């Protein structure tokens, strides 16, 4: 559905994205992750024909986003970040207007506008002026607009930013349901959201793709280099020194909680040091209240890939 080849965009000589290559297949929900300023919005703007790339090519539904921009745009629904809307229009009026712009056939306008209002829960505000709507409703108007012409591809730039936890859950459900009929490319900062909704994830950092895989695979990679947490009373021992001697332990950080010490161990990939720790604790007569292998989250993947100095 989306095909991106060597896509590069420079602003006044400064590269915003460099040599991006990726593909999004029909029916996929692709998560687009990256710190602020990584180039997510730039990429999405190029894909939605809002601005041309400096070099490289991108196609949407087989149409070049620059050369055949009108056809490409007809196949995609785009929801920009912060959802700019005409504040002077009413919700239904705005959606009618957008439907006509997107060439929804005359006789289907009322039906489509009704459908998207239903889907996005806009019925109760349909007669309101957009300028008076809350952030959550504006977000939904933006989403409704993107869905109006039943596009094959949805590009959503931070669809849940600024929403409260209930609204986030609703939007997430909505996106999941939409994924059954549409291909979706969505960017976000909220990592659990990606784990729950996306079938594949691209992590982008400083304009380059750092990883592109399924959430499970990404987690698998990091879990191998995961950590162990030990909470124990170590008496007169230092604790850290002893733990470091265990083969496979890379380094140990210590926190105190009253008499208890909390050790976070980074271990080499593919090793399980919990048994060794257990034996050590018995030998030294430590009192142990917790010994766990820490489960890595997408957040760890994200931090590891976008903050190399942390590792």
């Amino acid at each position, binding site marked *: 559905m989306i095909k991106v080849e060597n896509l590069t965009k420079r602003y006044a000589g400064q590269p915003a994205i460099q040599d991006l290559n990726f593909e999004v297949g029909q029916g996929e929900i692709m998560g687009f992750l990256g710190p602020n300023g990584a180039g997510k919005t730039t990429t999405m703007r190029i894909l*939605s024909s809002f*601005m041309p790339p400096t070099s490289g090519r991108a196609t949407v539904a087989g149409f070049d986003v620059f050369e055949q921009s009108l056809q490409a*745009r007809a196949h*995609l629904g785009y929801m920009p970040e912060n959802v*700019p809307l005409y*504040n002077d229009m009413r919700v239904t009026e705005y959606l009618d*207007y*957008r439907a006509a712009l*997107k060439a929804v056939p005359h006789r289907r306008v009322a039906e489509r506008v009704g459908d998207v209002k239903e889907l996005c829960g806009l019925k109760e505000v349909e007669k309101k002026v957009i300028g008076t709507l809350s952030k959550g409703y504006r977000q939904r108007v933006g989403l409704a607009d993107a869905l109006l012409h039943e596009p094959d591809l949805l590009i959503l730039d931070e669809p849940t930013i600024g929403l409260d936890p209930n609204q986030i859950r609703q939007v997430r459900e909505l996106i999941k349901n939409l994924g059954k009929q549409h291909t979706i490319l969505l960017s976000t900062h909220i990592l659990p959201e990606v784990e729950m909704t996306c079938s594949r994830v691209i992590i982008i950092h400083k304009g380059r793709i750092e990883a592109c895989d399924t959430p499970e695979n990404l987690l698998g990679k990091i879990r191998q280099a995961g950590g162990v947490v030990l909470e124990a009373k170590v008496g007169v021992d230092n604790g850290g020194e002893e733990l470091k001697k265990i083969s496979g332990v890379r380094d140990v950080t210590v926190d105190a909680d009253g008499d208890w010490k909390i050790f976070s161990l980074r271990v080499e990939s593919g090793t399980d040091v919990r048994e060794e720790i257990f034996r050590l604790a018995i030998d030294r007569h430590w009192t142990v209240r917790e010994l766990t292998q820490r489960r890595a989250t997408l957040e760890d993947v994200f931090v590891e890939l976008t903050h190399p100095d942390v590792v």
Partner: protein
Amino acid sequence: MRKFYTLLSREVRSYFHSPIAYIVLIFFLIISGIDFYFQVSFMNQRQVQYTVEEAFFNSVFFWFAFVLIFPLITMRLFAEEFKLGTIEPLMTAPVRDGHVVLSKFFGALVFYLVLWIPTLLYFAIFLKVTHQPAAHSAGAYFGSYLMLLLLGMFYLSIGCLTSVLTNNQIIAAIISFCAITLLFFLGLVQFILLDVSSATRDLLGYFSAIEHMGTFSRGVIDTRPIVLYMSMTIVMLALTYQAFQSRKWRL
């Protein structure tokens, strides 16, 4: 064509959704009303060689209001969309840049023409009350309003261009006000500078909106100003189109 019509109707509606439209309408009605009243009362006091209609369209009052309304009408056209970011959903919908530019220009033109509709009433009332026509012939009315249309198109297209160049409405208004005022006073240079050659004076006279209005409001339809204003409008809109497209590369 449907997309163009959709864009145009939004442009026109958005004028009437904003308070600026009503302020401009009222301001303009007051000034043109005072203008009409003064002209008629002045002519009641002494013998003059011109008609009420000519006086109305050639007074200082008229020109003052006239030059001022264009920045107010056009400043928001593009600048507001850039500022609010609504340009993004607009240009990611399958619409052509040319349609957007033309819809904004014609939207402004429609509002401008709405401004003038009440002035037709003045002449009707004048006829009803005094049982005298305000002009010698229908051609004079036609000429005046044709000139209004031509000048309006040209000055609105200047406003479009300045609005597309910035995302700040005030800056757009100031630049277009300067440009329109300078162009307008170009025609008056011949009265201010006495030592210019007669050739220069003639040349500048060709660009004088005041002179053109003087001719047309007598009912003399000269084709030269028609060609001038039409072609200048097209040039300005072409520049607007170019500037609008260039935003993609400047981003």
